[in-house]
């Protein structure tokens, strides 16, 4: 398969990239790892005249923590996220580690995953459950958007063509917080999930009561979705099987899967229930584990 021809730019700063993007409008596409973009070019799904390689942008690299807020650069590769570290929540590491294969993870970036916005995207789901905000830089400055409200449709988000996603912001990992990630597919690797679930739990100081919960569901709606019902069931309740089962039920009720050649809607709905329960159990054990560690 042949790549169509295009012009290639390698800007060295964010302002330069933004001004190029501003000049060329939707004729241009940012290029990060290329694991989505180049595939789509070859399949002739996209035919931009210009590719704007982001790899020279210092502003999109690196991670940092400031006043309990973690900032993760858009150019973090899935491999980097999967290997964890103090700024990377365990939930995000699990999701990133389940993406594709080692080769794909070495190329695929956080920004690319968020902009491609596939319904089962393995980096989107953890970030959604973690309550992350994306930072978008555009011609008229920066804006922050909560991920809950960022996704609009498959491959379609609130990001404007002239904007570049620079980084995401989320709460720094802390004791009493845990995550669970469950991905169901045919294979153990190189697999887009049939259903995936990311669960995030924050416990009160008693180590039992749920202070806050978010459950994100993949491949059961046009884009990664949160289950408000599950969150509501969990909030303020004592963490445990009973409430997790109810939350799983609520998540399954809110999922909106469709039938396609990869699986039926009914099966996916049932799997939301099973995977949510498992993800919550996993999140609880991580949250309690982190508390014990601290003690």
């Amino acid at each position, binding site marked *: *398969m*042949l790549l169509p021809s295009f012009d290639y730019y390698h800007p060295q700063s964010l302002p330069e990239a933004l001004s190029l993007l501003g000049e060329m409008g939707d004729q241009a596409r940012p290029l990060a790892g290329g694991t989505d973009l180049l595939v789509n070019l070859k399949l002739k799904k996209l035919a931009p005249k210009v590719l704007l390689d982001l790899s020279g942008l210092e502003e999109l690299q690196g991670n940092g923590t400031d006043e309990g807020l973690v900032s993760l650069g858009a150019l973090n590769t899935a491999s980097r996220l999967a290997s964890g570290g103090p700024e990377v929540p365990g939930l995000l590491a699990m999701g990133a580690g389940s993406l594709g*294969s080692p080769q794909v993870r070495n190329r695929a970036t956080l920004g690319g995953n968020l902009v491609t916005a596939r319904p089962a995207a393995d980096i989107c789901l953890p970030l959604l459950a973690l309550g992350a905000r994306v930072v978008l830089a555009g011609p008229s400055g920066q804006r922050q958007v909560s991920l809950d409200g960022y996704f609009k449709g498959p491959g379609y988000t609130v990001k404007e063509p002239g904007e570049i996603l620079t980084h995401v912001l989320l709460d720094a990992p802390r004791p009493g917080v845990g995550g669970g990630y469950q991905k*169901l597919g*045919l*294979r*153990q*690797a*190189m*697999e*887009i999930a*049939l259903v995936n679930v990311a669960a995030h739990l924050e416990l009160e100081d008693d180590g039992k009561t749920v202070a806050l919960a978010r459950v994100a569901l993949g491949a059961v709606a046009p884009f990664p979705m949160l289950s408000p019902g599950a969150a509501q069931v969990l909030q303020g309740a004592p963490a445990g099987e009973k409430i997790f089962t109810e939350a799983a039920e609520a998540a399954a009720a809110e999922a909106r899967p469709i039938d396609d*050649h*990869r*699986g*039926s809607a009914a*099966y996916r709905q*049932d*799997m939301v229930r*099973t*995977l949510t329960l498992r993800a919550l159990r996993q999140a609880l054990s991580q949250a309690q584990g982190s508390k014990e560690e601290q003690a």
Partner: protein
Amino acid sequence: MSGNFEVIGSRAPRKDAPNKSTGKARYIEDIKFPGELAGALLQSPQAHAKIKRIDISKAQALPGVVAVITAQDIPDVKYGVSPARYDETLFAVDRVRYVGDEIAAVAAEDLATALKAVELIEVEYEPLPVLLTVEEATAEGAPWLHDQFPDNVCAQVEQEFGDVEAAFAQCDLIQEGSFFSKRQDGAFIEPNQCVALMDSDGVLNLHSSTQVPHYVQRTLAMVTGLSMSRVRVVKPYVGGGFGPKASATPIDLAAGFLAMKTGRPVRMAYTREQVFLFSRARHGFTHHMKIGVKKDGTLMALDHQATLDGGAYSSFGIATVYYAGSLLGGPYKLPNMRYHGLRVFTNKPACGAQRGHGGVIARALFEQQMDVIAEKLGMDPIELRLKNMMETGDVTCNDLAMSSLGMRECIEAVKNGSGWDQKKGKLPPGKGIGMACGFFVSGAGYPIYRSETYHCTIMIKADEDGGGIVVYTASAEIGQGSETTMAMIAAEAVGIPYEQVRVKSGDTDFGIDLGAYSSRTTLMTGHATKEAGENLKAMILETLAQELGIDQSRLDIKNGLVKISGEPVDFSAIRTGYIKEHRGWQDQPSGEELTFREAARLAYLRLGTLVATGKYKPPVLGGKYKGAAVGTSPAYGCSAQVAEVSVDFETGQIKVERITDAHDCGQAVNLTSVEAQMQGSVSMGLGEALFEEVKFDGQGRILNPSLGEYHIPTVMDMPETKCIVVESGEPNGPFGAKEVGEGAIMPTIPAILNAVRNATGLVLDETPLTPERVYLALKKQKGA
């Protein structure tokens, strides 16, 4: 096991390992010719339609386009695999029969231009009813895909051996079951590609990624109207084949025509999607079986029906439908067997041969039913198999002669190797263990076309300085290791170290070889290589005996040294002559014994260049009944496997945790290669059991023509695999060797099915065992 070998049975490093591991191996993609044109195919977007009009004028007018050809520009010659069923034309004449059917080809200065030109070809279609299933194709009033095949029946087989009804009347238990499998893709790593060019001798050279240079040469010659000697096919390194590369492709032929027309080299390549469109891989099978046994477990009779969804053309299908029946003749004593086979045309890509040709799903159902029978009779599944298995010397009811059969050794090896007795019936919930057996031909007894041709010929030439030998073979190294195998066999036969043998293969200028299919190369090409090696050795020893004035029977060569029995013999004149010839060299022969180098050099000085040849074709084999040619082989490999699985009851997900695999390959030529074939078979069988399915939409378009959406196992899905090599010593094989490439896949699917049944109690009748399928079956079981 049988012999006292120097080279055979070792783990000699593969001849291609240095090139492949350093990226130096040249595949067709890496071989460039000056002045190449790029070719591209126009393939039908419609599954079934009449062609009303083709207009190539816009494509021809595009700058950079050098040639555009359609059915009008080439001889009207039908081809295919089996001559009795030639039903393909390179380009559609007036009708297309599947999405992907070839209509035209373009050659242009570059690929982008060729692809653009293909888009500019205008075709007016008149849609015809699209028949996508066997039911639709055989329905009353369905249009026929081919005028010469009424009712869309490609082939029908009726066979009965013994008296099935009479046997059923004596049975205590009659077990019935059905099975449905899905179409597979070969999923070899290297998509088909070729370059054709005319040389200055007027020979059409085709370099192609194929398993069968000889059949490609024959088809290309027949379709172009050239003689065989005016067509040469060369196979560089090939990235796998598994069956779908065992016949000429439309790009082989189109590139040939375009090269003839333009006088320039023309390269054509399939994309991954086009690999799926060409297909020629595993059929979707439907089987029904009725198996009768006595109370003590004695197998009495099998009544078997198989229906194959063949796709749009015959391809290998006639062989497939016969194999689906004949490969149940063993490895158990089964005195009565009836088979009704049917292969039907549908508007989908043609299916063909794939590893375990025709037999895999029949074996899956049969072995699954064996387990059910064992349970109903209160027997252990292994005990039931041991009771019925064949032994060396047995002949099946359909005349397949088991000249060696280590079935018992295989069964016992997997029983002990897996810890069967400690595990069966004692595993925790969600875990299961199951076993199965199988067997396969070690080379088809007959060529695809009727002929008395040798199946392979070999030339071995000794280096003029005596330093080594070169084996010339037209056989096809496709990654399975046949070059290594032939080098080892030649080294053993001549009596020299493996390192002194070079192999040149895959070129039709080197002789005849039917190619890499039906697990034939080790046994057949191996025989010819052994014969050539022995002939070469005899030539050298005859000259040496004359020179030394002794009887030739006193001489032998082993490990590069001449062995002289009896009284010591003075060979100093030969050595002195050699040393004088090589003044200045640092590695003069020394030591007590005359070397191969000196002896071979002497023979060259007396006779000129030393060339010895070998050849092989099987003896007349098997039965006289219709279809007896499919399934007869000089030898049969057999195997047994135990699978251990865990089943997730809440998701339906199956994980194959461990496979214990034993295979009787007669004699391992290269132990590492035998184990690699066993592991590869497990991987392919596991994929078919759990993941693989080519899916179509309602218009006959493939929904998942990529290795992202068509799931083959990754290394992460591979179970821990324990390979146990059994060596029964095959009298009809070179140095006792027989197949491992396909027999090893036979037990994988049923062993997994039986393990899943052991874990869940479910008799699942449809592959792949996707989580959803298993989950629904579990749900139904719970409800029931």
